[in-house]
């Protein structure tokens, strides 16, 4: 998996992409979807983790949206740390969704090269 921007990646067909989300100062309330399909949490309640198998044809993309649900009681410093990992290489850990962000449901695009 190769990064184009924080939210856009090139991947290989057959590669598995893993998105691990660590809640800091907030609860583990994370929901994810890939191109219209539910992504199940395989990481348990403490560390929500979502896996997708790249099965689109070259040129097409997986469009993944991950919503992090803050609550009013969460402190302003609450955030979710993302780790994106490709089974054929590439680990990226610098995506953060903060409570102070306006967007709590960022899009990730994985394009088959």
């Amino acid at each position, binding site marked *: 998996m190769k990064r184009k921007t*924080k939210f856009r990646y090139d991947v290989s067909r057959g590669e598995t992409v893993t998105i691990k989300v660590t809640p800091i100062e907030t609860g583990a*309330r994370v929901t994810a*979807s890939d191109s*219209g399909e539910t992504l199940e949490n395989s990481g348990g309640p403490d560390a929500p983790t979502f896996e997708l198998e790249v099965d689109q044809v070259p040129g097409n993309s997986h469009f993944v949206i991950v919503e992090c*649900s803050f609550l*009013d009681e969460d402190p302003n410093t609450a955030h979710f740390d993302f780790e994106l990992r490709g089974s054929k290489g590439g680990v990226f850990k610098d995506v953060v969704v903060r409570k102070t962000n306006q967007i709590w*449901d*960022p899009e990730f*695009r994985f394009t088959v090269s």
Partner: protein
Amino acid sequence: MAIPRVSCRTPLLLMAGLVLTCSAVRAQEYENPPEVLRDAASRGAADILSELERGTQAAEAAELLDQVWNRLVFYTVADALPGDDPHEVRGLQAYRYLAELGRTDKQLGATSSGPGSTSLAEKPGIPELLALALEHGAIEQSVNGTGLTLSTSPYAFVRLLEPDNAANFEQYGLWRRIGGSVTFDMRTEDPTVANVDINQVAEWSVRVRVIGDRSTRTKKFTQRWSEVVQPKIQARLNALSGGISKALNGSPELRDAADASSEVLKGQIAGYLESSDGVPREQRIETITAMTLSALKTTVFDPISESRIALSEETFRGITVAMSGLVKAHQDLFSAQQDLGGILDELNRSPLLTVAFTHHTKVQGSAFSDAKLLFETHVAPFDAVVNGFISWYDHPDPAFNQESVRDFGGTVELAGSVKNPFGRSRKLDVVEPILISATYQLSRLEEANDAIHIAQVKVSIPVTTGVTLPLSVTYASRTDLIDEDEVRGNFGFSLDLDKLYALAHAFTGL
């Protein structure tokens, strides 16, 4: 809104030139865009600016456009397509993330006998973060005072050493069960923390929560949230990501045009960020939003509506189905707000039992300590708080007929709520109800060899996020020092720093 003139320096302009010219980007405005589109573009713009304000380079900050770009394209395509079904996008209200309703179980003010307290019964909740309450008035003492209470939990210090993630939250749960507070007697005109010192300590208190946990971070609450609220969030995400996929995977021509446009736009935004230092924040957000909508108009809306980019019947149908699903998901999310309120009510009504020890320094009369058992539960339709207490003098003064035991007794409070006319105006605002409570306390004051009856009616009015105005009328058969009955009115205000901090960020966006 005028679109700023931005030089087109990026090499990607050449690619974008296939679908638009730079001057067209500047000239076109997306008049009356769908609400959901404008809102998403505005939120994306705000995040780009916040990233810049955190010290990130302009070009990198502009890349945050990618976190919303695909949905912006999808909304625009739906707006541009012929027929009524895709135009449901114009009926979509701006998406609002679910947020918590207010909590009322935290004891933010002084204990009931502290200076300036307006609380007769004490609640057993323990704030995890620093909370501050400044209240005026008095109930049990003969002197009016002004009290400043600071309270915290050892878990706040654990967080200095360990990341406050879900695993540690569970592992160090014991520290969350303990709370402490100090109340300062404020005699100066400037009631700020910076102006208090140790000589002003009126009381200090330690609490241990024995039964119950009302944190929204517990596994139990997260499980309830997953059962009740998450399916509705999931439905929206599936509809949205599905619609994006149908639109962009279904039309390579549209995808290429949108991709080229986003690259050009990111360059323009970066250029604007570098050239607009000093421009008011709101104006910069509006300008970036207008730039974004303009690019969408030129490179997506116009080509689709003018059939310069043709979508297949299958793609059209897929977008239409996704849009219908999105409309339904948005409607369901309004009820999810109520569902969230419901499970928060469940949480807030779960029983709490706390043991408290408080030492009252010698502000007037002899210093004394007390131990209390604080219990709160829900007895429909009321929230009930029951306190039992006993207090004793550190050094009883025989001259005042004092013995070791000062007093003992119990308190019962029944509380309910009514609708608050002060409504939500921003995302982080919450509509907290007006709380009305009736309290009765019976105690025996040993040195007076007399029983004291106190009855109180209290109204707590949340006037805005984090600020509550408590008003109360109290009847007492006597006070500690004077054997005369009295009726007293009290007023004050309570501040919840957690909420005020969040509100401040909502205004500044920092």
